[in-house]
């Protein structure tokens, strides 16, 4: 019996990622059931799920979802294109990094919502401002991680490349980038979550006609809690999926990790 279960366990690998979600829903259902919290404030998972399904099928949740995805992806793409090469470049000289570290740590520690006015000034009130501020926030964290990946990379392989005649740029590209890849992936995952968070906050507070953030704040305003939690759930699940994508990419590309 136990033997059989053991044999099956590896096959149930797909269940693992779901466990966390199940636990969350279970706790939620429990809290709701024993009315630890007023049901007006925290609806049951079932109500929220109903709101989610209804929003997706009949309502505009699908549309809002899509808009948020597009914004997040645009912001993240911009951030990656700028921040990864910059991170590699800055990280390759710790002197250089030290001189810009103030800026990076400064802006990393400043809330995006405090930056909204400034971005509105430069990018106008349209879509660009939202994408720009999210890209900025994501770029900072990607840059930070990539640069530290490069700075903490082991020396020997870079020296080996140097002896073989690789130029500084080549070493960076052929060796350092690879060495720092695990850290860069962590940066990218932090970055994509950050982009999503800022896009949602921007949708909440910088005028917007659609998107999950707008949906969340509207639902909150009219105290439509099932809809609010449905939207939050959609946002979180989106974040998980985007992270999952990178986890898959990483296991594919960084096969030597830990060896």
């Amino acid at each position, binding site marked *: 019996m136990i033997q059989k279960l053991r044999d099956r366990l590896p096959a149930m690998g797909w269940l693992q990622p779901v466990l966390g979600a199940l636990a969350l829903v279970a706790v939620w259902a429990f809290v709701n059931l024993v009315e630890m919290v007023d049901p007006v404030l925290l609806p049951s998972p079932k109500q929220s799920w109903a709101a989610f399904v209804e929003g997706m099928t009949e309502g505009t949740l699908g549309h809002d979802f899509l808009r948020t995805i597009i914004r997040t992806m645009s912001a993240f793409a911009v951030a990656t294109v700028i921040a990864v090469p910059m991170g590699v470049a800055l990280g390759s000289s710790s002197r250089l990094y030290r001189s810009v570290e103030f800026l990076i740590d400064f802006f990393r520690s400043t809330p995006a919502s405090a930056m909204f006015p400034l971005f509105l000034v430069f990018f106008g009130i349209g879509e660009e401002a939202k994408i720009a501020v999210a890209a900025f926030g994501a770029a900072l964290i990607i840059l930070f991680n990539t640069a530290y990946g490069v700075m903490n990379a082991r020396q020997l392989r870079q*020296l080996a490349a*140097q*002896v073989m005649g690789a130029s500084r740029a080549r070493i960076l590209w052929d060796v350092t980038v*690879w060495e720092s890849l695990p850290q860069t992936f962590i940066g990218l995952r932090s970055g994509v979550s950050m982009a999503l968070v800022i896009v949602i906050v921007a949708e909440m507070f910088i005028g917007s006609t659609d998107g999950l953030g707008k949906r969340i704040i509207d639902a909150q305003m009219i105290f439509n809690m099932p809809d609010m939690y449905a939207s939050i759930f959609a946002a979180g699940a989106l974040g998980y999926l985007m992270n999952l994508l990178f986890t898959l990419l990483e296991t594919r590309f960084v096969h030597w990790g830990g060896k």
Partner: protein
Amino acid sequence: MSPDDSALRLVSAGNPAEAGDHADTGDHAERFRWFAPGTHITIRGLTKTFGDTVLYEDFDLDLPRGKVVSIFGPNGCGKSTLINMISGIMDYDAGTILFDGKTARETKIGYVFQNYREAGFPWLRAIDNIRYPLKFLRLTKAEQDARIEKLLASFNVSIDLNRYPYELSGGQQQLVSIMRALVIDPEVLFLDEPFSALDYEMTLFLRDKLQAVLTEMQVTSLLVSHDLDEAVELADEVLLLTRKPTSVAARIPFDAPRPRNAETTVTPEFIDVKTRSLEIFQREVRKP
């Protein structure tokens, strides 16, 4: 380039300020006389300290062109450090390293690291690790392939080169490391205990192979080995180092004809060189 038309050029690395100072002060100036033809690498006034331990102080050395010099010295005397400084990947505090008309960076260097396990690129398959340095030789794709073909044919290895380095055994990794150093037909070859992880058969094979290549191509080579038989068998000259602060204890030439093999090791000349080397080494190591 023949040894004779070699231009004399000062190449300084390390802390540029201090190195420059040294060269200019005139203090060491007379040392930079024209040196014997046939010298490839010249080291003058080299100083290297780690924290407050002095490893090299005012160290001079000439390495002849196209010859194999075996370095023999106790653990921690600074053999790896020396090679690293010569090959330009480690800074030094003062001194000059002259590469006979070229800088280390302009020279085609092959280097088998003592730490062969970490020197490979784990994101490249073994074969691509070997191919990698060819990138810098301005060869066409076809020429590159030809080189690899030739190398593989002459090594006739039984390893699956489509594996990643971390999937190889220690000895296999070291073999890949050696092949990577040789594939470029280097002008200068640094071998830091290159056979330490290879099996009996492979070691013998590579000793022969290396001799053939090095004498045919006239590669200036520096070999570190703790196996005295090996060191002497491969050497044109055995360089004995003292404990730190490191200096040259003796240089013993060995001119036996090549190719050398097991038979060489029983010739009186070989035994003589070996015995003398051992005496000096042990005297130096046992110095208080």
